[in-house]
């Protein structure tokens, strides 16, 4: 494990570079295939509406995968992430309009732990709604 960020160089409040991640129906179909999660709420509008959703929604695990990229890109080595957890608070709604949705992710160092580890708190929103809650990663820095 070779993180490129040194523990001594970060402080509580240090912000990680924020990112935005676009999501279209094609993204969800590709993610369904790669992850093996073929739940029709992620690609079949008729089915999604029938079970009470506003439209097709992104896989929660897709959003979780995108959000941690802010941390893995910052740390350099993805293996620097030693813990990662989220709560799925609101769905990312993905309309079939050729544009889709955008997931906006920001993150900052919340706590400096022992053993060169820090806790990073993430914020993920889509269409102005917070889509992840309690989104935290523990990262081992250099």
């Amino acid at each position, binding site marked *: 494990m070779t993180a490129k960020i040194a523990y001594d160089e970060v402080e509580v409040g240090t912000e990680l570079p924020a990112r935005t991640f676009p999501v279209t129906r094609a993204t969800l179909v590709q993610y369904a295939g790669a992850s093996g999660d073929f739940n029709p709420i992620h690609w079949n509008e008729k089915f999604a509406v029938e079970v009470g959703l506003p439209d097709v929604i992104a896989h*929660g695990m897709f959003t979780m*995968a995108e959000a941690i990229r802010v941390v893995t890109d910052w740390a*350099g080595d993805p293996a620097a992430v030693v813990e990662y957890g989220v709560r*799925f608070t609101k769905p990312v709604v993905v309309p079939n309009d050729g544009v889709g949705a955008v997931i906006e992710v920001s993150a900052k160092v919340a706590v400096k732990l022992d053993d060169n580890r820090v806790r990073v708190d993430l914020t993920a929103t889509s269409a102005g709604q917070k889509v992840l809650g309690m989104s935290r990663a523990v990262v081992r820095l250099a």
Partner: protein
Amino acid sequence: MALDQSFVGRTYPPTPSYEVGREKIREFAEAIGDANPAYTDPEAAKELGHPDVIAPPTFVFAITFKAAGLVIEDPQLGLDYSRVVHGDQKFAYTRPVRAGDRLSVTSTIEAVKSLAGNDILDIRGEVHDATGEHVVTAWTKLVSRAPEES
């Protein structure tokens, strides 16, 4: 219908091993749009100190969730899967998943609760490699929503 509390603490047998392939990791990394070379280029992964390409942090969910199927589909537990949504997800890593791993998952029911008619199920999946070394633990909270009043 409330789930049976006696299931708390129940552990299911380890799953047959899942062999992690380089191309499966590449497919997953492409699906999330992540061009980090540690996921696709063995040389880049070696420069970071890994013996082969590693998987993105959430890759292992596909394996642990399939293993959780033993719990979810246990007819004695009686969970209504058509009403299940994913509540929380957490991972704690001893090391990253990497190509060549042969992973087995042991699932345990950590908690069973009923809250406002919703059934809540906490499942822990312990992931070990072929040598028995711990790789990652995954905690999955599933919520089976109460049927709407008709």
